């Protein structure tokens, strides 16, 4: 199966950069993961949850630390479980408590990152894990691509099911209640989705910049669109474009792939800002 896809890529992309197997894997991963960033990013930006998704990165980091301590070969699976639980706790407390959302997230986020750092530095072996801070997209393996395909399909299906409810909740919670939408379950599904995506991507993109990938494409798209369909479409296109552009640019410039992708989406954001006045 994978051999066939490689052959197709060789035919479609007869370029030097696409000749390497690790570049093909990275390209496939980008084609699977960036649309999800674009998709989820729309609601993260609309709901002003940029800080929240950032803290999920911290939760994921701690999860990886716990997974490593448990001696798992793939600490990322422990990390997925941990960061989903982390997301659930923040969401529930945010709903139940009257403290400001920023404070709740700030408290949990700082505890999580500190715990992660303490756990990973136990025995002075922190350097082994510093890769999670920056990430390495070129290290992606065929098995991981298979996992990504599964995640991709799951997110699309969930997005079809919960999007309308989610948007209504974000417009007005009481209005959503009057329409029979159960606020908390909808929010929990959404935050868990973000948690899963952030956690599995963190090893490739890195803790430091993962949030930019979620926020930038959507932030750029909302500058130049006036309805939900265009918003989503542009966000996804910008995410994919930055992803592929960043991969190719990083190959020739010999730079970190994730960071290059972020820079390209950053440039697109500023271009979109220039056109903003036309849409508002």
């Amino acid at each position, binding site marked *: 199966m994978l051999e066939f896809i490689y052959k197709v890529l060789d035919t479609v992309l007869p370029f030097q950069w696409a000749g390497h197997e690790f570049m093909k894997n990275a390209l496939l991963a980008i084609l699977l993961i960036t649309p999800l960033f674009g998709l989820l990013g729309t609601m993260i930006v609309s709901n002003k949850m940029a800080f929240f998704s950032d803290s999920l990165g911290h939760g994921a980091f701690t999860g990886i630390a716990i997974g490593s301590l448990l001696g798992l070969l793939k600490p990322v699976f422990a990390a997925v479980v941990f960061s989903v639980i982390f997301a659930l706790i923040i969401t529930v407390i945010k709903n139940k408590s009257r403290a400001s959302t920023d404070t709740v997230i700030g408290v949990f986020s700082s505890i999580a990152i500190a715990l992660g750092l303490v756990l990973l530095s136990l025995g002075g072996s922190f350097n082994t894990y510093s890769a999670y801070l920056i990430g390495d997209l070129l290290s992606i393996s065929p098995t991981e691509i298979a996992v990504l395909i599964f995640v991709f399909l799951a997110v699309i299906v969930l997005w079809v099911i919960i999007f*309308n409810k989610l948007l*209504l909740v974000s417009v007005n919670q009481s209005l959503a*209640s009057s329409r029979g939408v159960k606020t908390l379950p909808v929010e929990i599904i959404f935050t868990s989705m973000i948690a899963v995506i952030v956690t599995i991507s963190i090893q490739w993109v890195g803790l430091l910049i993962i949030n930019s990938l979620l926020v930038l494409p959507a932030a750029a798209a909302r500058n130049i669109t006036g*309805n*939900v369909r265009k918003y989503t479409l542009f966000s996804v296109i910008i995410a994919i474009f930055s992803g592929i552009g960043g991969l190719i640019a990083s190959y020739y410039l010999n730079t970190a792939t994730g960071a290059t992708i972020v820079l390209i989406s950053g440039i697109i954001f500023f271009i979109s800002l220039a056109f903003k006045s036309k849409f508002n």
Partner: protein
Amino acid sequence: MEHEQYNFGEHCSGLCCTKVENFCVTIGSTKILDDVNIHIHCGELTAIIGPNGAGKSTLLKAMLGDIKHTGELQFLDEKGKHNGHPLIGYVPQNLSFDSSAPTSVLDLFMVSNSKIPAWLLTTKKIKEKVKTSLSKVNGENLMNKRIGSLSGGELQRVLLALALDPVPDLLLLDEPVSGIDQKGLELFYNTVSELRKEYDLSIILVSHDLDLVEKYADRVILINGTVLCSGTPKEVFNDEKTSKVFGMSWYNSRADSEKKNGVQ
């Protein structure tokens, strides 16, 4: 002065009705609402008035089930048969959305009423339906506008159209405190009045504008933690509890304006 007492019997005296029975809301250790009982007949516009912090909006949210409460909300149809929870249309006081959000009026209707995800596609049929809904509030031209770009009055009419699709048993209106000019408010109330006659709607309105309440409401309920008094606008406004709650300055300015109207 004796007021009309609530009918606590099992049956409605006239047509269909909605009953709020023994509503209590406690948030933290503060009792916001205590033993609120309200009985509303179809086709009536009931205004809820009260000072700031009286629990007016809380009562609406409790009726929506958005806030934990004790007590029951019941809807009974013409035959007095128990119909359970009413279908509620709700017009919120304000929306918490970011005004730069790329969400159009059509999107708002889609996410409220359609199973098709708004980000994926829209159909001609949906657009026609939304247009029909909006035409009820003279808002056909607003369909493709961003909700953030609407004026306060336009947004209020769009939310009213949304609350009426599908036609509810009970319409809850939470009047905005600011953001709508007098002309916009009157247009809104005129639309509400027309729709009430057309659909025989039960309407509960939380209002801050006592002049408009006097003009449009059939019944007025004064609450401050619990129901203080109720009746026709005239009865409630002439009750000493009302002048006590709203203060002497309100009472005097009312007397002045009545005098003025008398002269005219």
